[in-house]
C-alpha cells in the first residue's frame, strides 16, 4: 500500500501512509486507538475507499472496492465474530455460499466436510468439522475463521486483536497455526496492543501515530521501550500533568472489595475505594478490567468475595441491588447498553429516575422538564434540546447523556467503562473534567480505560490488571509518564 490518504469530514486520518508485507511474514501493525490502523485495514478490505494512493498485491496494482474484491485478490480478514453462522457446522461455514454440489445440484455436505478437514489439517488445526459453530469455544471459532479464509485461498490474512478473548493455551495453539501458515507462504498482518505477543510471533512492525507512519522496523532491531515511545510519541498535554490529589485514606473506605472472583476472568481481586477518590483500572483488552466492574455491579455472578459499603457488608446479586446500594455503572457500549437511541434526551435521563419524577406512578411532567433542563445545563449537552432524539447527538454528547442519567440517581460510587470510546478530542477533555468534578463533590469513581493518558490525567491511584488479577497498585505520583504506565500494563519491567 503506497501513499495512502484518507479523510473523514475534512479530518485527515491517514497521511501518505506506506505499508508493506512480505510473503511468509507476520507483520505487526501498532498504534494507539485512533492512530489509523483500522482505517488502513478497512481500505485494504474494501470497506472504505481511499482518497488517493495505490495498492499492489504480488506486484500487480489492484482496485479493491468491496469485501468480495479483497477476497478475490487473496486478502482475508479474520473477524472477531461477524462471519460465522452459529447453527451451521464448521465445514458448512467454511464453504458457505460456495458449497460443493453433486451431479443433480444438491449440496454435497460430505464432500465439503472432507475438503474442510483437508484444509484444517494442512494448517494444523484440529476441529471436528461436523460440529456446529455454536458449540465451539471462542478460540475454535476463531480458528474456523482462519480456516475459512485459507480455504478461500487467502494469501494475506488480517488478524485484529486475535487474542483478546483467548486463554493462554489457546493463544499458543493460535500461534502454532500462524507459524504453519507463514511456512506455507501466507502473509499475516497482526494488529495488537500486546508487546509480548508482538515480540513472540511477529517479524517486523509498522507503527502509526495520528495518521502518520512513524516507524517500520525489524523487531530484532528495536526494543519494546523504543516501540512504545514510537506509539505514544512525546506528548505534553495538560491532561498528563496531573499529580493525584490528597485523598484521606485513613477513614473507612467507601467500597471495600475482598477476594472477589467471578467466571474465571476475575481472580481473587481485593481493593479499597475511598471517598472522593478516582481509581483507575489499567490493563490490556481482555485482561478482566470490564469483568471486575461487571462482577461488582452484579451483572456477572460472583463465585466468591465480599463487598463492604462504608464498613457494612452488602450483598449485590443483580444491578437492582447495586443501584439500591448507591452504585452506578456507565457501560462500555453506550449504544447497546446505555441508551435508547430512538428516545429523546429527556426520556433517556428519565429512565433511571422514574421514582423521583412520578407520583403514584403518574409522571410529573413539570418536574421532568426541570430535571432534564438542569441535567442538560450541568453536563453541557449540545444541542441543549431535551426533546431531541439521542441518535441525532454526537458520540460525546450521547456519553454525557448516559453520565447525566446515572449521576442524577445520586450514586455514591460511579463505575465507568471506557467513557471516551468513539468520542472526539474536545468532548474527551470535557468528560475528563466532568469526572474530576464528580470526584470533587465526594463521589468515588472507578475508571476503566484503554487510553492511558486519560487514566494519568484524572486518576489518584491506578491498579494494573492482568489476566484477571491485580498485579500492582500505584499512586499517581509513582508513575513517571505514559511510557512508564504502558510498560507496566505490558508487564515489562521498567
Amino acid at each position: 500500500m503506497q501513499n495512502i490518504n484518507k479523510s473523514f469530514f475534512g479530518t485527515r486520518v491517514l497521511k501518505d501512509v506506506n505499508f508493506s508485507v512480505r510473503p511468509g511474514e507476520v507483520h505487526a501493525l501498532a498504534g494507539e486507538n485512533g492512530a489509523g490502523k483500522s482505517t488502513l485495514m478497512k481500505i485494504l478490505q474494501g470497506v472504505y475507499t481511499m482518497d488517493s494512493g495505490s495498492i499492489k498485491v504480488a506486484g500487480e496494482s489492484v482496485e479493491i472496492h468491496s469485501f468480495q474484491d479483497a477476497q478475490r485478490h487473496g486478502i482475508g480478514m479474520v473477524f472477531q465474530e461477524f462471519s460465522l453462522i452459529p447453527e451451521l457446522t464448521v465445514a458448512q461455514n467454511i464453504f458457505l455460499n460456495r458449497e460443493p454440489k453433486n451431479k443433480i445440484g444438491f449440496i454435497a455436505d460430505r464432500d465439503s466436510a472432507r475438503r474442510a478437514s483437508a484444509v484444517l489439517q494442512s494448517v494444523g488445526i484440529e476441529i471436528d468439522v461436523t460440529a456446529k459453530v455454536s458449540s465451539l469455544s471462542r478460540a475454535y471459532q476463531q480458528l474456523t475463521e482462519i480456516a475459512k479464509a485459507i480455504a478461500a485461498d487467502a494469501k494475506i490474512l488480517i488478524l485484529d486483536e486475535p487474542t483478546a478473548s483467548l486463554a493462554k493455551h489457546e493463544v499458543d495453539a493460535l500461534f502454532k497455526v500462524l507459524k504453519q501458515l507463514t511456512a506455507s507462504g501466507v502473509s499475516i498482518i497482526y494488529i495488537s496492543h500486546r508487546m509480548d505477543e508482538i515480540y513472540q510471533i511477529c517479524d517486523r512492525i509498522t507503527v502509526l501515530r495520528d495518521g502518520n507512519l512513524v516507524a517500520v522496523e525489524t523487531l530484532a532491531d528495536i526494543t519494546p521501550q523504543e516501540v512504545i515511545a514510537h506509539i505514544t510519541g512525546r506528548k505534553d498535554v495538560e491532561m498528563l500533568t496531573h499529580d493525584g490529589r490528597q485523598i484521606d485514606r485513613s477513614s473507612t473506605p467507601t467500597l471495600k472489595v475482598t477476594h472477589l472472583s467471578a467466571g474465571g476472568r476475575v481472580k481473587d481481586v481485593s481493593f479499597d475505594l475511598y471517598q472522593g477518590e478516582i481509581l483507575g483500572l489499567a490493563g490490556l483488552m481482555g485482561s478482566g478490567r470490564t469483568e471486575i466492574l461487571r462482577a461488582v455491579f452484579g451483572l456477572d455472578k460472583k463465585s466468591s468475595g465480599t463487598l463492604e459499603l462504608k464498613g457494612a457488608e452488602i450483598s449485590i446479586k443483580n444491578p437492582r441491588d447495586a443501584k439500591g446500594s448507591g452504585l452506578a455503572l456507565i457501560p462500555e457500549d453506550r449504544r447497546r447498553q446505555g441508551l435508547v437511541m430512538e428516545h429523546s434526551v429527556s426520556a433517556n435521563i428519565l429512565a433511571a429516575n422514574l421514582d423521583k419524577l412520578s407520583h403514584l406512578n403518574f409522571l410529573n411532567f413539570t418536574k421532568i422538564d426541570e430535571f432534564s433542563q438542569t441535567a442538560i445545563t450541568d453536563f453541557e449537552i449540545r444541542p441543549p434540546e431535551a426533546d431531541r432524539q439521542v441518535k441525532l447527538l454526537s458520540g460525546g454528547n450521547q456519553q454525557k447523556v448516559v453520565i447525566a442519567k446515572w449521576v442524577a440517581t445520586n450514586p455514591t460510587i460511579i463505575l465507568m467503562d471506557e467513557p471516551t470510546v468513539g468520542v472526539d478530542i474536545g468532548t474527551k477533555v470535557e468528560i475528563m473534567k466532568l469526572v474530576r468534578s464528580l470526584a470533587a463533590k465526594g463521589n468515588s469513581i472507578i475508571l476503566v480505560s484503554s487510553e492511558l493518558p486519560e487514566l494519568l490525567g484524572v486518576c489518584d491511584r491506578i491498579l494494573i490488571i492482568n489476566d484477571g488479577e491485580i498485579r500492582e497498585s500505584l499512586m499517581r505520583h509513582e508513575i513517571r509518564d505514559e511510557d512508564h504506565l504502558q510498560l507496566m500494563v505490558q508487564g515489562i519491567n521498567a
Partner: protein
Amino acid sequence: MKTKLFTRFDWRASFIYWMFALIFLFFAVLLHADGFLGPNNLLNIFRQTATISVMAVAMTLVIACAEIDLSIGGVAGLSSVVVAITIRDHGAVAGVLAGIGVGLLVGAANGLLVSRIGIPSFLVTLGMQGVAVGTAALITNYAPIPILNDGFNRIFGSGSIGKFPSVIFWSFSAVLIGWITLTRTTLGRRILATGGNRDAAEFNGIDTKRIKFTVLLISSTVAAIAGMIYAGRLQTGRYEWGTGDELSAIAAVILGGTSLFGGGGTIIGTLFGALLVGLINNGLILAGLPVSEQQIIRGLIIILAVALAKKK
C-alpha cells in the same frame, strides 16, 4: 480432540419425538376403548393435520430465515374461493392456476414490502391477513361456493389412493420437498445463513433481501395450495377456510424444535409438531371433552411443551 469434546448432547433436538411418543402412549392407554388405535382413527389424525403440516413446512423455512408469515390462513381462504369461482366459470386447470396465482401475488407483495421497504414481516403479513380474508369475503359475499368438478375434488383431498387419503400424499410431498430444500440445496443453506447471522451472510456475498423475498413467496404459494386442499376436501370454497391456521402452523414449527429467532430449522420435527397438535385434538375429541375444555388443554400442552424444550 475428538468429536465428543465439542458437541454436547442436545436432548432438545429429539424432544418432539419423546413428547409425541409419550402423548401417543397416554392416549393409547386412556382411550383404548374409544378406538383411538383403530386404523381409521389414525388415518384421521393424518387427514386432519394435512393442511397444517403442508403450511408448517413452508413456515419452517420462513422462521429459519428469522421472519414470520401470519397471512397464510387468509391466503388459504382467498385461494379456496378464487379456485372455486374459476372452476365454476373456466374449468379445473384454470382454477388451479388461479389459486397458485393468488399465492404468488400475495407472496410477492409480502416479500417486496419486507425486503425492499424494510417493514417487519410480522406487520406486513398481519395486515395482509386481513386484506386476504376481507377480499375473499367480499368477492363471495360471505357465501360458500360449491365445487362440482370431481377430478379436482379427488386430487385435492376427497379422493384416496388405495387405502390412503390423497391429502396424506400432499403433506408427505411437502415434507420431502421441504426437507431436501432445507438440507440439500444452496437456497436452504442461504436461508439458514440469513436467519442465523444476517451481517455474516452479507459478508459471504449472500443477497439476504432476495432470500427473504423468496421464503415469503414460497410460504404464500404453499398456503394457496393448502387452500386448494381445503377446497377439494370440503368440495367448497369459503373465505373462512384456514382461519387461525397460521397459529397452528407456527405452533407445529416451534414444537418441532425450530427456534423462533431463526438460523435453524428441522422439517421432520415440524411434521411431528403438526402431528402432535393433531394427535392432541383427536384425543381430546375422542375423550368427549367440550370444545371449551379442548381449547384450554390444547393451549396448556403447547405452552408446556415449548417451555420444556426451551434453551437454557
